[in-house]
C-alpha cells in the first residue's frame, strides 16, 4: 500500500467515525423510545428538524452559538416530546384499532404536520448558521513536519463528535445509576413486571418519549454547524435512525452506538471505494443484511455468547 492509498484509507476512516458518532446520537433516541414503548417513532427526523430551527432562530436573531443552543433546544424538545406523548400518542395507544400499528401511522402524521408548519413559518428555503469556525481543521503536517501523509481533522465535526460522546455517556449514567433510569429500563424489559414492582409505567413512557426527543434534538444542534437546514430534512434522518435501531438491536442503547459507528464507517468506505452514488445502496444493504443475518441486532450476538459461557 502506497502512502497515497494509506492516506485515503485513513482519511475515510476518520470521516466515517466522526459521522458514525453523530448517527449514533440520532439512533439512540429512536431506540430508547422503541425499547420502552414498543413503537417506532417515524417523526424522529422531524423532531430533529424542529431542534435545528430552534438553533437557527437563536443563531440568526440572538447570535447564540449552535452548540450552546443545545441547552435550550434539548429541554424544548423534551417538553414537545412529553406533550406529543401525553396528548396524541397515549390516547391512540388506548384505543382498540383495526390495525395494530396505528400509533406508528400517527407518528408519520405528526412528522408531516411538523414539516408543513416549518414550511409555513420559514418557507422551504435552505437555512444555515454560518459560524466562523465552519471550515477550521487540524492538519497532521502542522504538527509533524516530515509526515509522509497528510490527514485533516475538521474542528466542528470533532466538536460535534465529542459532544455526542458526552451526551451518550450522560445518558448511560442516567439509565444505569439513577432511580428513574432504572425504572425506565425496567419498563423496557417487562412492562407488567415493572408495574407490579410499583413503577409508574405511564409516567416512564412519557419521560422516555421526552428523553428520546431531547436526544435527537441535541443531535440536530450538533448537525447544524456542519450541515444545513430545510423543512423536509427529517425523512432522511428518520431512515438513518431506523437502520441503526434495527442494526443495533431494538431498544439497546449500546447497540445503537455500535450500529451508528458501523453505519458511518460503512457509508464512508462505500463512498470511497464503490462511489458516493452507492452510499444509499450501502445503507440499505446493511439494513437487509442485519434483518437476515442478525435479526436481533448486534447486541443479540453478545448476549448469545454470554449465555454460551
Amino acid at each position, binding site marked *: 500500500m502506497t502512502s497515497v492509498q494509506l*492516506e485515503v484509507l485513513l482519511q475515510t476512516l476518520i*470521516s466515517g467515525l466522526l459521522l458514525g458518532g453523530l448517527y449514533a446520537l440520532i439512533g439512540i433516541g429512536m431506540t430508547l423510545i422503541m425499547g420502552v414503548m414498543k413503537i417506532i417513532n417515524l417523526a424522529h427526523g422531524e423532531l430533529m428538524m424542529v431542534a435545528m430551527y430552534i438553533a437557527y432562530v437563536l443563531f440568526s436573531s440572538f447570535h447564540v452559538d449552535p452548540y450552546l443552543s443545545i441547552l435550550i433546544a434539548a429541554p424544548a424538545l423534551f417538553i414537545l416530546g412529553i406533550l406529543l406523548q401525553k396528548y396524541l400518542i397515549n390516547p391512540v395507544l388506548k384505543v382498540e384499532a383495526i390495525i395494530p400499528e396505528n400509533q406508528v401511522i400517527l407518528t408519520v402524521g405528526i412528522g408531516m404536520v411538523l414539516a408543513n408548519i416549518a414550511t409555513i413559518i420559514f418557507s422551504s428555503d435552505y437555512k*444555515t448558521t454560518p459560524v466562523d469556525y465552519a471550515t477550521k*481543521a487540524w492538519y497532521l503536517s502542522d504538527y509533524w513536519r516530515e509526515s509522509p501523509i497528510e490527514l*485533516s481533522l*475538521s474542528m466542528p465535526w470533532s466538536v460535534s463528535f465529542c459532544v455526542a460522546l458526552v451526551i451518550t455517556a450522560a445518558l448511560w449514567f442516567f439509565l444505569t445509576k439513577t432511580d428513574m433510569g432504572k425504572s425506565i429500563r425496567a419498563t423496557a424489559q417487562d412492562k407488567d413486571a415493572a408495574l407490579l414492582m410499583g413503577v409508574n409505567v405511564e409516567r416512564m413512557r412519557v419521560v422516555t418519549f421526552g428523553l428520546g426527543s431531547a436526544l435527537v434534538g441535541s443531535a440536530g444542534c450538533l448537525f447544524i454547524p456542519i450541515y*444545513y437546514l430545510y423543512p423536509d430534512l427529517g425523512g432522511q434522518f428518520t431512515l438513518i435512525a431506523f437502520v441503526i435501531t434495527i442494526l443495533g438491536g431494538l431498544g439497546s442503547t449500546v447497540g445503537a452506538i455500535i450500529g451508528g459507528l458501523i453505519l458511518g464507517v460503512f457509508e464512508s468506505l462505500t*463512498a470511497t471505494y464503490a462511489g*458516493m452514488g452507492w452510499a444509499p445502496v450501502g445503507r440499505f444493504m446493511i439494513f437487509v443484511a442485519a434483518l437476515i443475518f442478525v435479526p436481533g441486532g448486534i447486541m443479540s450476538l453478545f448476549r448469545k455468547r454470554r449465555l454460551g459461557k
Partner: protein
Amino acid sequence: MKRLTLITLFAFVLSLSASTLFAADTFDLVIPLPLTGKQAKFGEMMKKSYEIAAEEINAKGGVKKKKIVLSFEDSGAKPETARAIVEKLIDTKKQPLIVGEYTSSCAKAVAAVAEERKTPYLVVASADDDITRQDYKYVFRQNAVNSHYADGLVSFIKNVVKPKTMAILYESSAFGNSGADAMEKDAQKIGAKVVLKEKYEAGSVDFKPLLSKVKATRPDVIYMVSYVMDASLLMKQIKELRIDAKLFAGGAAGFAIPEFIENAKDAAEYVMTASLWCFKMKQPGAKEYAEKYKKLYGDYPSYHGASAYSALYVVKDALERAKSWTPDGIRDALRATNVSTAFGAIKFENKEGYQNQNFMDTIVLQVIKGEHECVYPDNIASSKYIYPIPTWRERR
C-alpha cells in the same frame, strides 16, 4: 333594484365600447409564467423585468406609437397548464406572438402548441437542448442551450489553465448528468484527461471520502455540477482537506448565486463558474437595468430577469420591422433579428442541428473578495481574473 341592474348594464356596455375604442392604441401581450409553486421565485423576477421593459418602451412612445400592455397568466410550472393557457391565447385571443415560460418542460409544451398553430414563440430562459432541435419553424430561443452553457468557462480553461487532468463531480440527477457529460466531452476536446468522474447523492452530509479520493488523483481542475447547498459543502470540505487544484470550477446553478458565497464564506474565494449573464459585465444596458431593478425590488436580478427584460426589446424590434402584425409577419421579422440587448447580442441562427437558436458568448464569474466578478471573456470583464490561485496553506 331594476335601476341598479340597468346602470350596471350601461356601465358594462360603456366599458366594452371603451376597450374596443382604445384597442387600436395598444398591443396586448399575455405572458405565461410560473407565479406559484417551486419556480415562483424565478417567475416573479421575470414578471418584474418584463414590466420594467414595457414601462421603458412605453415611455419612449411604444411600438409604432402603440403602447405595450402586459398581463400575466400563472402556469405554476405545470406543462399542461402552460399548454392550456397558450391554446387559449392563440385560439380565442388571437395573440400573434407568444413570449415567456420558464421551465424546460413547460417551454417544450408551449413550443409544440405554437408550432402546431403556426404562431411564433420566443423562449426566454429554458435551457433544454431539444426545444430548438425539433425542426420547428416558429420557435425561437434567445438564451444559450445546456450543452453550450459552459462554453466561456471551457475556453478559459483551454486558453489560461491548460490542464492535463480534470476531476468531475456531479449530483446524480438529469441536470448533473448532462452537465458532467458535456464537460467530459469538452475536456477531451481541449486535451485534458478526466481522471475521475463521480456522482453523489444530492443532500449528502459528508463528501470527505469522495474528496480524499479526488485528492489522491491530484487533478489540475476540479469541475463540479451542483445545486447551492451541495456546492457550499463541497467547497468547505475541499478547504478542510486542503485539496489544491489549479482551478475550482462550477457549472453555474449552485455556484453562480450569492447564497453560495454566504454559505461557503472564505472557502468560496477564487472559485470560478460558468454563467449566462452578470450585471457587472460590460454590456450596454445591463447595469442600468440591474440598478433599476435593485431600486425597485431591493436586490440584483439574475440572468432570468435580464433575459425577460431583453425579450421584450427583441419583441419590440421584431414588431417594428414586421410587415404585418400577423403570426407569419412577426415570424419573418424575428428570423432577421440582429439586436444588442442588455442580455447580449441576439441573432437567431440555424446551426449544429439547432433552429432559430441564439448562440451567445457565455461568461465566467470568479469569486473575488467575497463577490462574484465577471472575469472572462476579456472584452466584457468587470475585473481581471486571479490566476494562478494561492494554495490553501498560503491563504491563512
